[in-house]
């Protein structure tokens, strides 16, 4: 079963990549724009489609309009500290079934900003707020970008790998 699924997901990915190459070639970002650290694991290596961060809204709308990926399921932020970037992972589905289409995009850690998908998929609203709250990623065009879990006065972004935990008496034990 899982073999079928991984084959299907590879085929979906290749089709989507070919379509993007044809219609939105400027959105496919060149690989290797962030350096891999020497010695450490290379978390940037991937077979998934990697797009230019500022084009994510255009790519998502293209997937919905032309390739029938109308369902945006999941948005994940990952802090790749050693590579100096954040990675955002989007999972899209077709309602007719089949595995996810994974779209990744990378942002510099100094200025993590990219367009929001909330205007087109209101279901992204809370997930983008979560990524903002815990990672400090700014989604431009989000109608209500504020903290969702932490309290409003909280400073810092706790899911970042360089977040310094403080005030926890159990930390030193």
């Amino acid at each position, binding site marked *: 079963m899982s073999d079928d699924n991984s084959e299907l997901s590879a085929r979906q990915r290749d089709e989507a990549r070919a379509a993007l190459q044809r219609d939105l070639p400027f959105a496919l970002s060149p690989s290797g724009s962030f350096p891999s650290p020497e010695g450490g694991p290379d978390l940037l290596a*991937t077979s998934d489609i990697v797009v230019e961060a500022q084009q994510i809204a255009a790519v998502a709308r293209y997937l919905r309009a032309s390739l029938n990926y109308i369902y*945006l399921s999941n948005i994940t932020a990952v802090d790749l500290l050693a590579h100096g970037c954040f990675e955002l*992972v989007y999972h899209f589905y077709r309602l007719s*079934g089949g595995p996810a289409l994974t779209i990744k995009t990378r942002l510099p850690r100094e200025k993590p900003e990219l367009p929001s998908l909330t205007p087109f998929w*209101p279901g992204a609203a*809370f997930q983008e707020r979560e990524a903002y709250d815990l990672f400090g990623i700014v989604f431009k065009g989000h109608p209500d970008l504020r903290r969702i879990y932490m309290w409003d006065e909280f400073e810092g972004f*706790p*899911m970042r790998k360089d977040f310094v935990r403080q005030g926890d008496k159990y930390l030193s034990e």
Partner: protein
Amino acid sequence: MLSTDELQINIGPQHPSTHGVFRLLTRLEGETIIELTPVFGYLHRNHEQLGEANSYLQNMPFTDRLDYFNSMANNHAYALAVEKLAGIEVPERAEYIRVIMVELTRILNHAGAIGFLFNDMGAWQTQLAFSMREREKILDLFEMVSGARMMCNYFRFGGVVRDLPPEFLPALQDLLEAMPAFIDELERLLSENEILLARTQNIGILPKELAISYSVTGPMLRASGIPYDIRKAEPYSIYDRFDFDIPIGSVGDVYDRFLVRIEEMRQSRRILLQALEQLPDATGSHINPKARQNVRPPVGDAYTRIESPKGELGFYLVSDGSTKPYRYKIRAPSFINLTPLGDLCRGHKIADVVVILGSIDIVLGEVDR
């Protein structure tokens, strides 16, 4: 008509009908909702960061605490993600045991959700007691296999922690034989109660297009008329071997959401009966003996999802080759199903808010993480 000033009312965070610590900020015109904003975070413990500090196996009992009604389903989704990441095979018998546990979970979750609906509408405790009685029977089965009633911690990478005890299968058979009477009774309580019909029909309608753009999943999506079930759309485990239907609603209101849940209980029973029939022929044992529990997956990432009773439960894991996940992300169904709550409530009376919220079926352990 009298003109009234706008009124702001704060519901929660400590309020019995919010199903946990959850706050709703409402703006009212008379009794009618103009705007409703959910406020989260009262149960936030940064589960995902704690998950990065644990080893892969240590996270297994930790997933029980997400949606504490459905610990077996959480275990399943997490086990699938780690198995995909580390390339672990699962024996056939273990797959059957897993399916039995997850389908039992679905029945107890839906029974509970329907029982709480009556509570939310003021029919205190009687109907809920019927549901809880049924839930107890299933929890007894869970205790038999795992030693715990709610925090089961039963799944392991490559299977389940121990095989079914000899008394389990006869007990399950008895439970399934008695179940149709319970489900019919529950349905009669829903569909023959005039007050309930008045309170739930045409309340909180979620149209198809909105359900899709709001990323809603599970019974809520199906009640809006979209036959999307991950067990069929992207079959995982051994769900492609079972014959079952996907119930859908026609209107997309609160009432449809509960009818869909009733029908899903019947379908789960069908799956369980088929699983019981096929289980004796299943090969292998309850766990893959070669599967290491202190896994060290290769560098990479994996996303898996299951049809949990509340919707799409997904785990996205990133491995850096060490014994701990580099990133441990949960796509929590009841968190994302809450997104349309403001839209669903607008224009309805304040008393309908608790009913609409109940029909989404949230658990705050999962919403706040």
